[in-house]
């Protein structure tokens, strides 16, 4: 029982870490797009 519990908890921790990583990736791409748009605005 203990090993099952530890296993599922580890799986959940890994899944949450991956989700968080993916969300950070989204935020970074958004930031990059904002920087690029600001560059375009300055260039106009």
């Amino acid at each position, binding site marked *: *029982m203990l090993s099952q519990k530890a296993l*599922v908890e580890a799986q*959940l921790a890994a*899944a949450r870490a991956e989700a968080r990583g*993916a969300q950070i*990736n989204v935020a970074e*791409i958004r930031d990059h797009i904002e920087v690029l748009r600001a560059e*375009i605005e300055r260039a106009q």
Partner: protein
Amino acid sequence: MSRIGIGISLSVGAAALVALACASPTPPALEEARRVHSAAVADAMVSENAPVLLYEAKQQLDEAEAAWQRGDDPAKVSHLAYLAGKRTEIARAVAEKRVADAEAGALSRERDRTVLEARTREVDLARVEADQARKREAQAQAVAASEAERAAQLEKELEELQAKKTDRGIVLTLGDVLFDFAKANLRSGAQQNLYRLVTFLREHPDRAVLVEGHTDSIGGDDYNLTLSERRADSVRSFRASNGIAPDRIVAKAFGKAQPVASNESDAGRQQNRRVEVVILDPGVAAW
């Protein structure tokens, strides 16, 4: 006891166990697992993006429900319910990752388009700046060429007027070819020379002139001073009548006071009978 009797006894016993289980309060872990799973099923983000994991969590929940229905050890029921709850949470986390990945994919494409747009604008801007620089360069070259042409023209005009550059400015000496002896009115032939000077002044409106009249030593001082003054005025009037603003021309009479040659000979006196036109440097007033 007959077989029928034994069967009945077992059935009654099982029913009693189920009834006992149902009568007991639902384990909190099972209630929590049900709540978490119901919320996940109702959430389209989870049900659409992690349907298999959600199904597996439901199977785990069904296993917990069955254990409870059977009246299994409450610790076992809670354990199975706990696993079902965690599996549901795993399904939610995986669904969140898939949503984020999909969003990242769309944003990456948008970023690529934006990068392309930014670089295109950079190129356009560089092109515009290069065009402007070329135009400025062309204008500067045109100005330089114009100034060079103007300088060359000035040299040519001064050469035609037989002028000399001095500390006072450019001095044009008009000999006694302008006037008859003891006269102050211009000879008709002299006007040709003066037209060239008028043309020069028209083309160089930033220049002013001094017209200085000189005589030889023949005659009294007053006479020569008056004559040189009248001669200088004749030249000044000629220019004024040809469109040169009067404030650009000042006439001065020196009489015989500033000879440039000996007055002992005809040749020397001829040199002394003269009008000197001083073309002042640009911006210098005649007054």
